[in-house]
């Protein structure tokens, strides 16, 4: 068990390396001079040269990479080329709304999808199953921003139950906070709920048909424990995979939903930074989210080993 966890943790290192290289090269190896891009095409030659020097763009690329990584380890993600504020502090200001939104979306979709997926598997081929399948199909076919717009038209514009846009932090009161995040969370979570529903149904079906379920039944295990304990723990490995992927997807998918609902999170920051060509901020956000994702993957991997003893051996 310990060995497995250590191995998993060590496996994170090359992934982090790849992530940082990809993000670095995205910004630095692209055609065009970042200095020109920042200053605009009508800047003077001296200004451009000065900025190149200041940004360290005259160093060889590997040196630039190493410098950047060393800075990152010191918590220095560079400065915004637009506002000149440190990227780290800019990110800090936009971090919480995104995390709250993603967490809210995940909670809603977990509570909806797991029970529905299990019921659908139990009532395979019956009306309940078909309804669940149709909901799931809609979920993966309606993009989150579209669902967000639809919800907004219905609940904010027509019925005026929820605010059209804006974000109320915790400090503004729990009810306001939840009210401001409800529609965005549903919009963001629906697709992942659909994916989890499908996966729960499929893996429960697979497990329910297995010999050990028949054996447990022959032992006298009651229906509830049969599904809730014997089947669920076995299905959990594949369900965990989807949950991990969904959290990751929700974190990055927040970009679009935040823009729809005007939530000042990392997502809307990245979109506005694209317009301002603020590469340092973009780079910082992507790096931050990617690192969080690596961490989530690690936790999922470790969680597997608690659920399925066979994984520990490998």
């Amino acid at each position: 068990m310990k060995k497995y966890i250590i191995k998993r943790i060590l496996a994170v290192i090359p992934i982090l390396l790849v992530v940082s290289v990809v993000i670095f090269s995205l910004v630095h190896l692209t055609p065009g001079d970042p200095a020109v891009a920042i200053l605009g095409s009508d800047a003077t030659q001296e200004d451009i040269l000065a900025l190149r020097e200041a940004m360290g763009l005259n160093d060889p690329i590997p040196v630039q990479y190493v410098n950047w990584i060393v800075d990152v380890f010191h918590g220095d993600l560079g400065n915004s080329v637009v506002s000149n504020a440190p990227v780290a502090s800019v990110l800090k200001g936009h971090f919480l709304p995104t995390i709250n939104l993603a967490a809210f979306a995940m909670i809603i979709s977990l509570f909806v999808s797991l029970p529905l997926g299990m019921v659908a598997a139990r009532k395979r081929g019956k009306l309940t199953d078909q309804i669940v399948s149709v909901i799931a199909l809609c979920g993966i076919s309606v993009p989150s921003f579209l669902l967000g717009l639809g919800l907004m038209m219905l609940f904010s514009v027509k019925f005026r139950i929820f605010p059209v846009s804006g974000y109320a932090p915790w400090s503004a009161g729990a009810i306001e906070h939840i009210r401001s995040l409800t529609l965005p969370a549903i919009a963001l979570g629906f697709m992942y709920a659909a994916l989890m529903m499908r996966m729960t149904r499929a893996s429960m079906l697979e497990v329910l048909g297995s010999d050990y379920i028949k054996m447990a039944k022959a032992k006298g295990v009651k229906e509830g424990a049969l599904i809730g304990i014997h089947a669920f723990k076995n299905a959990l490995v594949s369900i965990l995979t989807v949950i991990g992927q969904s959290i990751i997807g929700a974190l990055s998918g927040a970009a679009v939903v935040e823009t729809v609902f005007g939530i000042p999170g990392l997502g809307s920051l990245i979109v506005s930074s694209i317009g301002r060509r603020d590469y340092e901020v973009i780079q910082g956000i992507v790096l931050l989210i990617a690192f969080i994702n690596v961490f989530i993957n690690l936790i999922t991997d470790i969680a597997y080993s608690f659920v399925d003893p066979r994984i520990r051996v490998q």
Partner: protein
Amino acid sequence: MDTKNNLDNFLENRSELSSIRKKLQKEQRQIRINAFLKNKLSVIGLVIVVIMILIAILAPMIATINPADMDVANRLKPPSTKHWFGTDDIGRDVYSRVIYGTRVSLFVGFSVSLISGVLGMIIGIYSSYNKILDNIFMRICDGLKSITSTLLAICLMAVLGASIKNVIISLALVNIPNIARVARSSAFVVREQTYIEAMHAIGAKPSRILWIHIAPNTLSPVIVQMTFVFASSIITEAALSFLGAGVPAGVPSWGSILNIGRSHIYNAWWLIIYPGLFTAISVLGLNLLGDGIRDLLDPLTN
């Protein structure tokens, strides 16, 4: 004498067997096609996709007004006999823009799934064969998985700048690992099979085994994956254009119409409903078709 009889019997049985097998295969194919047609959802998916393709091809005939024509006097007008889906904030005809938007969406989706399908398959099959390449490839995949395709696409678009070509390049890059994984894992499965081992044993060239025997077997899962890439590319293109980071401003696209709709959500529902419906229905169609093809090619997963 006896041996000869046995041999004759054997050969006769063998040819009989192979003809039976052929018949069985044909029958099975027929059964699967019947199952596909019987599965109403897949047929609905197929019909939707065909209609969308027709709309895209025939856009100039179906559209009523040049999608770029502005009529500022008639801006943000609700649907009418002249403007079936109303007009947008600078008086362009939403119906024609949605119709032309179908072209953009399908073109992007098709190009992305084709490019990432071909390149992904080549990479996937090669890495199933070469251990070093495989290791590098898997690490890159893990890394990209953490960056996520949405963010990667947004970044690429930020760097490359808004254009249809760049949307295709970004989305293809993002989806290559996806397809490569599928090709790689099914290549692994085929590789473990006895007949491939037997071919190695009789000294067939590895490259021959790889491309003549293993590659075709990875085709069906790759095709299934390609339809899902098609669908997700339509979603991502619409999302990118919605964010203003997809196709350039003037090009009619579902996402950019929705973007305008977001700003006028209080008074111009038609700017959201129509492009929204087109997006959702075509994605639904592709997903249904993808499910259908998967069941058709691989009945075991059902």
